[in-house]
C-alpha cells in the first residue's frame, strides 16, 4: 500500500489499483479487512470522498464487500477476478502503445515476436 500517488491518472483510480496490487501480492488476503476510507484519506492526504470512490469502485466490481458497521473486506475469489480484469485490459493498457511505438520505429511483427521470445525466456 505504500506506493506514491502521481498525477498520471485520477486519484481514486490509483487507490483502487493500489488495493488490487496488494491483493495480487498477498499483502491483503481474501476475507481480510481493507483500510477504511478515513485511514486511506489520512495516509495519502487526500479527500475522504476520493478514497471512498476508489473503494466503491472495487465493491461494484465484487473485489471488495462491505460488512455493515465493521468495514470493507476482500471478497473470495478477488485475486482471480483482478487477474481476469487486468487480462481483459492488457491489450489496451500495454500492447496498444507497444504496437504504436513499434510502428513509428519501423519494427516489424517478426522482430517484435523475436524480442518477446528472447527476453521472455530470460525473464521467467
Amino acid at each position, binding site marked *: 500500500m505504500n506506493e506514491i*500517488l502521481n*498525477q*498520471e*491518472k*485520477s*486519484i*481514486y483510480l490509483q487507490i483502487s489499483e493500489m488495493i488490487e496490487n496488494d491483493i495480487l501480492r498477498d499483502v491483503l488476503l481474501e476475507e481480510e479487512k481493507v483500510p477504511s*476510507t*478515513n485511514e486511506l*484519506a*489520512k495516509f*495519502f*492526504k*487526500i*479527500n*475522504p*470522498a*476520493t478514497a471512498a*470512490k476508489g473503494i466503491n469502485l472495487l465493491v461494484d466490481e465484487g473485489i471488495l464487500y462491505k460488512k455493515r458497521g465493521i468495514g470493507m473486506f476482500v471478497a473470495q475469489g478477488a485475486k482471480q477476478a483482478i487477474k481476469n480484469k487486468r487480462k481483459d485490459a492488457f491489450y489496451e493498457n500495454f500492447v496498444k502503445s507497444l504496437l504504436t511505438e513499434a510502428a513509428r520505429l519501423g519494427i516489424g511483427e517478426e522482430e517484435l515476436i523475436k524480442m518477446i521470445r528472447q527476453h521472455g525466456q530470460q525473464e521467467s
Partner: protein
Amino acid sequence: MEQEETMSLKCENIVKIYQKKEVLKNIDLEIEHGKIYGLIGRNGAGKTTLLSILTAQNPATRGSVTYDGMPVWENQQALDHLCFSREINAVSPFGQNTMRVKEYLRIASVFYPKWDKQMAKRLTKLFHLDVQKRIAKLSKGMMSMVTVIVALASKADITMLDEPVAGLDVVAREQFYRLVVDEYAKTGRTFVISTHIIEEAADVFEEVVILKDGMVLCKENTQELLERSMHVSGNAHDVDAVCEGLCVYHEKKMGRSKGVTVVLEKGQSLPKGYDVTVQPVSLQDLFLAFCGEEEAI
C-alpha cells in the same frame, strides 16, 4: 435538532469596491455543507476579501450573504456557525502585538461557541507551541500554526482558512493536510481553504473555486475538472487540427512543436487518429493555464 446537512453559505451578486476599484465583481457562490473547498487565485484576485465578506468581517458594497437563508451580517445566530481564521500579524494597528498566544486562544474560545479546549491543547503540544510567547515574537511558521489551531479547535460548521500554510515548512504542511482530512473525516465539517501552494493541497479539495480578477472563473469538483482537462502537444499542425473548436489555453510554441492545455466541455472529446501526445494536467498546471500571463521576458 438542526439539519446541518442542508445549511449552506450563499453569496449573491457580491460586489466590493475599494477606493473606486472593483475588487470583487458579481460573485455568486454557494458553499455547501460537508465539503473541503479549495479557493485558489493569484495575489490580489480577491480571495481574502471574499472570505472576510462571507464571514461578515467586511461589508460588501452590494449583494447579500446568507447562511441557511439568514443574512450573515451582524447576525450572531449565523455567525456562530462560521469561523474565519486569518493570518496573524506581528504588528497590529496599535503597534507590536504583545498579546500572548494563550490569551489569543482564550479570546478565540469566547468567540467560537463550539470551541474545543482539548483539541486546542493537543494541537499546541503537537506543534511544540509555547503559549506563553508573545505573538510579536513568534516566527512566521508559529503564527501560521496558531491560525491553524484556531480554525480546527473552533469546531465551526463552516471554517475558512486564509493561506494557512504560507509560513509552514513542508513537514508542517503535511501535518496540516493530515489534520484537516482527519477532522473532516471525523466530523464532516466544511472547510474553505485559500492557498498559493496548489499542488500539495489539490488532492484534499473536493471542489475547487478559481478566482481571477475578482470573478469566479470556475467552481467545480476537482477530479471532474481535471478529467476534462489535458495537455496536447506535438507538431503544431496536428495540435491545431486536434484542438479545432475546443477551448485552449496557454499555447506554447517551440520551433515546429506546440503545446496547449485543452479543457473539454460536456460531450466534447479529442478526435482520434492524430499523432499528438496527450497528457493529464495537474491542478497547478491548469491554474497556470487559466491565470498565467504570457509575458515576454
